[in-house]
């Protein structure tokens, strides 16, 4: 047995589709195992550059998960040691979006959970609000386009129409006045938003300043706590977000998670969001996978992913087949807070296995 | 008080000493003509005197004040006007603006006398200075510098490209001002012009002084000998 095994990204994807995210990039699990002693997990997190905003949250949540795993005996009997590595970008690289970096890493991982979320959210708005026409606005890259492809099929299945669809470049200094004007002319019932980070803020502020927020519902698929802070109370009317985690989720598991974070960090609890929650889930997933596989051998890990259960901030997630079942939430923005209005329980990831 | 004096001045560009150990002075009402072939360091000497280049050694005194490391704009305040050889005017400005830019009220009344002597300038007041011929630029620069009416004037090749008729008028103006007590340092290639105005000569070669003295003691033959070697 070699002193360490490299778990490549694709292998891990197979096992953890939809569960892992930015916080722990599977590629960073390389060199995870020393023959004895500590079980090292590389934690690729943004510590510099604009995305560093999410670093503390990711690291804090991962540390909590590591503590919990260690208290329960560690991985294969060894204590987890997190090795944070800076995934932040060089200044020339950071041109635009604060979450761009993570999303570049995250894309493949989140698609699975997202097309399901899109379906639930779209159906909820069609039924709840009688929405007929939709306008799609996203950043021009794979996650947004895939989400929108999924959305379009659900919309047409539900008898709705697409009033417009457009994409803005990722990482460019975008302006949204022209797009908002087109939306104004198209008069859709709902705008589906898959722009991220600063673009998400800019779009929503422009949207509201043109007074469109009164008549048109907005539904965003990556709108977490800090982005909402940037959008601001005056621009967040009639705005929904659909994700697997909100800090305000009232579930027992989340209360426990938040209490544990509070106990660990006291007043210095980092802003909790879906990104940190994913880092937490990632560590637990790694433990469950490796424990079950009994080694970090790639094939064994892949095999172990079947039927695996592990802790997440939102509760226990289970992999059935190669899907992850987890709860999704639809939240309405109240000023700069999320208020969960609907819970979609045990949503199965639709992503097929890439290996 | 001596308007400009310099002793043992050395300096140049980078580590190169273009000018070496030069000394001289010009009294009120006198003209010092600096003569020499191209590239012997005449313009460099003027730049050292006016503060565009730092002196590596030696002392420059302007109107009784040691210039030390004073900036060019400060030296002008001590009482010296300068008409450079290269880029003598503001090309982007009109002829009128070139003359008016530093005049308090922006009026050209003070230039009447010059316009009478050089009517070409008055005709071209509205024209962009960059479109003037080389000689006309020199006339404009000369007019601007002389009209500042300071105790010392430094001219770097003022007659380059100027018609002989106007060169004679320039000499007349300089001689008038000499009578009024103005001191001049003039770098000149045109010996006929130099002979009209010079009181003293400083003849340079390879950055050094090879001959200096009053014009009465230095004939054209002496100068030509150094210019052609």
């Amino acid at each position, binding site marked *: 047995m070699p002193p360490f095994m490299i778990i490549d990204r694709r292998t891990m994807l197979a096992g953890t589709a939809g569960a892992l995210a930015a916080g722990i990039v599977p590629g960073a699990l390389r060199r995870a195992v020393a023959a004895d002693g500590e079980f090292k997990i590389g934690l690729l997190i943004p510590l510099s550059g604009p995305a560093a905003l999410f670093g503390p949250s990711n690291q804090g949540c991962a540390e909590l998960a590591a503590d919990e795993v260690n208290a329960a005996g560690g991985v294969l009997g060894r204590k987890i040691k997190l090795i944070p590595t800076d995934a932040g970008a060089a200044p020339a690289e950071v041109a635009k979006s604060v979450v761009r970096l993570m999303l570049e890493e995250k894309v493949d991982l989140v698609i699975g959970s997202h097309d399901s979320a899109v379906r639930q959210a779209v159906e909820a708005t069609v039924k709840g609000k009688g929405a007929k026409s939709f306008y799609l606005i996203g950043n021009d890259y794979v996650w947004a386009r895939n989400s929108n492809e999924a959305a379009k099929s659900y919309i047409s299945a539900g008898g709705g129409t697409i009033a417009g669809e457009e994409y803005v470049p990722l990482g460019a200094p975008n302006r949204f006045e022209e797009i908002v004007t087109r939306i104004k002319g198209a008069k859709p019932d709902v705008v589906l938003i898959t722009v991220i980070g600063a673009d998400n*803020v800019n779009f929503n502020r422009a949207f509201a300043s043109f007074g469109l927020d009164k008549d048109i519902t907005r539904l965003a698929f990556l709108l977490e706590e800090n*982005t909402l802070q*940037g959008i601001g109370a005056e621009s967040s009317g009639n705005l929904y977000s659909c994700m697997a985690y909100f800090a305000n989720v009232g579930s027992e598991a989340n209360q426990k998670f938040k209490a544990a974070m509070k106990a660990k960090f006291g007043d210095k609890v980092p802003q909790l969001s879906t990104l940190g929650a994913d880092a937490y889930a990632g560590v637990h997933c790694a433990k469950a996978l490796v424990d079950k596989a009994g080694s970090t051998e790639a094939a064994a890990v892949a095999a172990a992913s079947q039927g695996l259960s592990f802790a997440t901030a939102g509760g226990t997630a289970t992999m059935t087949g190669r899907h992850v079942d987890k709860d999704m939430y639809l939240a309405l923005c109240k000023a700069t807070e999320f208020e969960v209005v609907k819970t979609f329980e045990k949503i199965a990831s639709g992503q097929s296995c890439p290996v | 008080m001596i308007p400009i004096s310099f002793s043992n001045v050395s300096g140049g560009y980078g580590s190169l000493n273009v000018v070496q150990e030069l000394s001289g002075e010009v009294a009120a009402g006198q003209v010092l003509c600096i003569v020499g072939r191209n590239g012997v360091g005449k313009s460099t000497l003027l730049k050292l005197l006016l503060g565009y280049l730092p002196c590596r050694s030696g002392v420059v005194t302007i109107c009784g004040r040691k210039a030390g490391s004073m900036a*060019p*704009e400060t030296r002008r305040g001590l009482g010296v006007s300068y008409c450079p050889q290269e880029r003598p005017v503001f090309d982007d400005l009109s002829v009128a603006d070139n003359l008016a830019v530093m005049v308090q009220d922006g009026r050209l009344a003070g230039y009447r006398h010059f316009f009478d002597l050089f009517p070409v300038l008055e005709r071209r007041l509205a024209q962009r200075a960059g479109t003037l011929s080389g000689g006309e630029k020199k006339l404009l620069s000369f007019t601007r510098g002389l009209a500042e009416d300071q105790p010392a004037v430094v001219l770097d090749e003022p007659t380059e490209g100027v018609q002989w008729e106007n060169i004679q008028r320039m000499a007349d103006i300089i001689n008038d001002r000499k009578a009024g007590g103005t001191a001049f340092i003039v770098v000149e290639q045109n010996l006929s012009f130099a002979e009209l105005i010079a009181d003293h000569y400083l003849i340079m070669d390879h950055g050094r002084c090879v001959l200096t003295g009053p014009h009465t003691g230095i004939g054209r033959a002496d100068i030509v000998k150094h210019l052609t070697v």
Partner: protein
Amino acid sequence: MDPLIITQILNILFGVTTLAMIALGLAITFGMLGVLNLAHGEFVMMGAFCALVVDRAGAPFLLAVPLALLVCGGVGLVVELLLIRPLYRRPFDTLVATWGLSLLLRKLAEAGFGLGFNSVAVPLAGTTTLFGTDYPTYRLVLIVICIAIIAALFAWYGTSRAGLKIKAMVGNPDLARALGMPVKRLATTTFVVGSCLAGLAGVMVAPLVPVHPYLGLDYVIKSFFVLVVGGLGSVLGVVAGTGVIGGLDSVMSALFGSTQAYFTVLVVAILFLWLKPRGLFAHG
């Protein structure tokens, strides 16, 4: 006319005028002093944070203007004296120095305010009906203010004696010094004015965007394109450059979409660098 077309025309106007406002300060320091201030965006960022501070304190938004002038002017003064002045005529050194400055200013903002997005409340919320279309009031006011500031600067530069001296100093600094112009003081003033304009632009955009330490990067890129197209050293160049870059961006964005607009702007900037490297209104 179709109200949507009017809205798009106003959008174009808004895009061009705000871009001009941001490019102006950059063009002034670049054109007048030959200093390519890579930290220009960070002065915009500081101006935006001034608006944030005023907003958080619950004070009237307009107070952000004097605060930003004070902060950006003050920082600009210190930077010119300590960093820029020793490096005049050393363009590459200036580039590196101002790049370092931009890092420092970003990190200081990060230390003071964190990396999170912040929002500044729009001072004139709501819309105004103009030619039969509703347009955000604040954006309308911004268009007017930007045009007023640029026109005033244009008029001042073109007609005042100070403008004449600046033109003389920029065109032939050695001769300007021979005439006794205080070139160092003029350079300092010019840099401070450029910094203040950036700060002012920061205050203006603060209610429209997420205020965060990296905000400046978004704006400075297009401003550089404006300089590439417009050329250096003239207000006319800035106006022409923003007209081309901002206009193309907005028009293409309105007609086709953001990706096409961004692509067009990049292609035009490259073509200018290639075929007309000195810009439409190159100096001299």
